[in-house]
């Protein structure tokens, strides 16, 4: 059972996404307020980050924080967002770093595929 942290601007959004992962995985939710403290625990196998925040930098700031962190940068991340110009611009950068991109709206199979791929990378790395 993998431990997955779902990060969104608010808990409602995080739960909407996270509930799709419960069952086979242990899921913890956090919002803008609790994101950094929760992530700093470093106990997760995967981070699913919804970057669609009212503050256009909020979600990307979290990802930058993770990328700069000496240990957390090793945890696989799947970025989730609706179609946006910023996602198009950043797509190549994300791909190069093995960061999954889940575009809304998505099918459950898409979500499972991204989670499986990200967790597979983690297992291969370890």
């Amino acid at each position, binding site marked *: 059972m993998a431990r997955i942290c779902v990060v969104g601007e608010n808990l409602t959004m995080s739960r909407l996404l996270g509930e799709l992962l419960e069952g086979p995985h242990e899921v913890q939710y956090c919002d803008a307020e609790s994101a*950094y403290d929760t992530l700093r625990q470093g106990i997760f196998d995967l981070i699913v980050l919804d970057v669609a925040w009212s503050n*256009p*930098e*909020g979600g*990307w*700031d979290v*990802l*930058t*924080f993770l*990328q*700069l*962190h*000496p240990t957390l*940068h090793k945890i696989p991340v799947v970025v989730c967002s609706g179609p946006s*110009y*910023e996602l198009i*611009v*950043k797509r190549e*950068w994300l791909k190069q*770093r093995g960061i999954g991109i889940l575009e809304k709206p998505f099918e459950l199979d898409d979500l499972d595929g991204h989670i499986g791929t990200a967790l597979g990378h983690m297992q291969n790395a370890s």
Partner: protein
Amino acid sequence: VKGHVVVIDDERELLEMMRFALEAEGFSVTALEAPDPRQLATTTPPDVFLIDLLLGTTHGQALADWLEANTDGNIPMIGISASSTELHLAQQSGVFCAVLAKPFDLKSLIGCVSECLVRTASASSGGAIDTRGLFPVNRR
């Protein structure tokens, strides 16, 4: 010490992480969450400013304009933002030495700061400027 960097970002957690990352790479860092011109005026002039373009109450571009007007104009500034529009406008302004898109990793951050320092040193000594890996803009 490789150089003194003043980092300005309104997201405290990211600000502290940038401070940590830069200090670990040998830079001395002053981290400012809320840019107060009076505070900047009394801060030892840095070798480079790293400025978030979307600050809470102040626009990073306005801050950069103020800094250029109130310093000798030779301190390089790097604009950082997750907004492509803000980065483009910053490039066009001619105030910034380089812009860096969020998200970025440690290699990009250190590379950008180091390159700006090298470019500034080369420019002041009349040497060649290597802009590979940067998004160079023309200074005024």
